[in-house]
């Protein structure tokens, strides 16, 4: 029973750390309607920056990671809004280039251990030692981070700036002929989503007490799967509900994954599972709509024969 709860708790912790990236995608993918393919490298950038800074200046580890993520988002945005590079392509280019940057940040290494460094987790652990909550110090750090980001996004997306970002994704033609500069809204949104993704990565590094060059590999697909699971949970158009749904979606994804691992699914299957979920979630509704037409074609072909 105890292992069961500790498994659930670990799934919750890892799910909530990923849910930060899911919320970043909620902003860039669901609101701005840009699929930011630099998410993987941005997550790794956050993890590397967070880990390296934690060794020297623990207090600014997370803010430093967020700043790095914002710069990565800025770069992706500049490529697509000012340099005429297609939005998918600019994400891929940044993703590739950032690999070298991340290795450089790790000091020409592909792995860094921060076992002995002070992190937000060790800070919370010492704060809570001796209290009944001592066993939940990890979860509490993560919940605080998730709650702050969710609160920020809920407020931000209702500001006129947030509305302008949503309009840019919702009806680009309308925004083009309005006084909103789509280059500006795209840049702001990608900077914010980049900094949230990097925060997610930095927390992951602090949680695992290590950062490596592959930490962000495939996180975009995992987060996208979580986002789509979350979207299927609610029909509300309210931002707060939708954010809550995608956070739960991230947890569900992690839980299913954990259960599958317990049933002896090898760990390397994670990425395949997340890809399959994304395929089902996106193509499912499409195929469902096509079904009547496919049936008619089959009937027609049978009659002809």
């Amino acid at each position, binding site marked *: 029973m105890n292992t069961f709860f500790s498994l659930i708790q670990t799934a919750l912790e890892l799910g909530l750390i990923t849910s930060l990236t899911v919320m970043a995608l909620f902003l860039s993918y669901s609101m701005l309607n840009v699929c930011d393919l630099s998410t993987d490298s941005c997550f790794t950038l956050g993890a590397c920056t967070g880990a390296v800074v934690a060794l020297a200046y623990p207090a600014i580890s997370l803010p430093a990671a967020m700043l790095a993520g914002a710069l990565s988002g800025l770069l992706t945005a500049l490529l697509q809004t000012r340099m005429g590079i297609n939005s998918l392509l600019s994400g891929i280019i940044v993703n590739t280039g950032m690999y070298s940057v991340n290795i450089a940040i790790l000091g020409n290494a592909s792995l860094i251990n921060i076992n002995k460094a002070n992190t937000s987790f060790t800070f919370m652990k010492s704060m809570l030692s001796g209290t009944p909550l001592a066993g939940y110090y990890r979860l509490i750090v993560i919940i605080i981070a998730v709650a702050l980001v969710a609160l920020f996004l809920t407020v931000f997306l*209702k*500001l*006129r*700036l947030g*509305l*302008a970002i*949503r*309009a840019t994704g*919702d*009806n680009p*033609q*309308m925004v*083009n*002929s*309005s*006084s*909103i*500069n*789509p280059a500006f809204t795209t840049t702001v949104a990608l900077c914010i989503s980049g900094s949230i993704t990097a925060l997610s990565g930095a927390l992951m590094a602090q949680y695992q007490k290590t950062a490596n060059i592959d930490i962000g590999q495939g996180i975009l697909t995992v987060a996208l799967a979580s986002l789509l699971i979350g979207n299927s949970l609610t029909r509300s*158009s309210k931002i707060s509900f939708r954010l809550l749904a995608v956070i739960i979606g991230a947890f569900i994804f992690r839980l299913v994954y954990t259960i599958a691992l317990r049933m002896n699914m090898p760990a390397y299957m994670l990425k395949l599972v997340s890809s399959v979920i994304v395929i089902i979630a996106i193509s499912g509704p499409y195929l469902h709509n096509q079904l009547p037409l496919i049936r008619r074609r089959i009937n027609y072909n049978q009659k002809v024969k």
Partner: protein
Amino acid sequence: MLTINNITKTFNLSTPDERKALDDFSLSVKPGEFVTLIGANGAGKSTLFNAICGNFITDSGSIILDGHDITLMPQYERSRNIGRLYQDPTLGTAPGMTIEENLALATKTGRWITHITNRDRELFRQKLSRLQMHLEDRLTQQIGSLSGGQRQAMALLMATINPPKLLLLDEHTAALDPEAEKKVMRITEEIVREHDLTCIMITHDMQAALDMGTRTIMMHDGKIIYDVYGEERKKVTVNLLLEKFRQATGKDLNNDRMLMI
């Protein structure tokens, strides 16, 4: 208010499809003037609007709006002073956002770090009630669930809630059913009159072109071929417009096709 000096725009330059959409085009519109713009398909009417709004930069010439040279200004900067409606009602509003969120984007533009306040909502309700479409009670409804006529009325409201220096209407009622068309046209006239807006309206309805507004311009091949206003305009009939077209182009204007779009 608006002065256009000798603008030219050639599409597909140096290809077999080369086409002069605007040919040394000049026009001066006085403040408060309501111009109705007619012409056959391909005459350059929408291209003229695109040039004024900055969808493209003209090859030559200059465009002056209210004393400011906007010839090279990017589109979003011009849009602060220009309201524009399209034939397609889906182009003017964001469907996934609510009525109040759409209206919020049209007000206090540039003041990014502001929420929708109750005073904003009061203003929205008051403006919406003028449409007589009962939208004032549905501020939190998504625009995508509204009818074409309602969406176009919303787009019109958003384009004029901060009275623009110039209002451009590109057959904004052509895609609506007759009932909605009448309603949107009535609201258009009311709003234009109330704020004394300078306005150019493209229409395929030649009778409406003469009934509405204060001046009528006919375009052909990127040029003005007929321009009438004041006392003289009161005597103009649809038949005279057709005659003017024939004189200028040597061709018959197929009135049916113009009306049918």
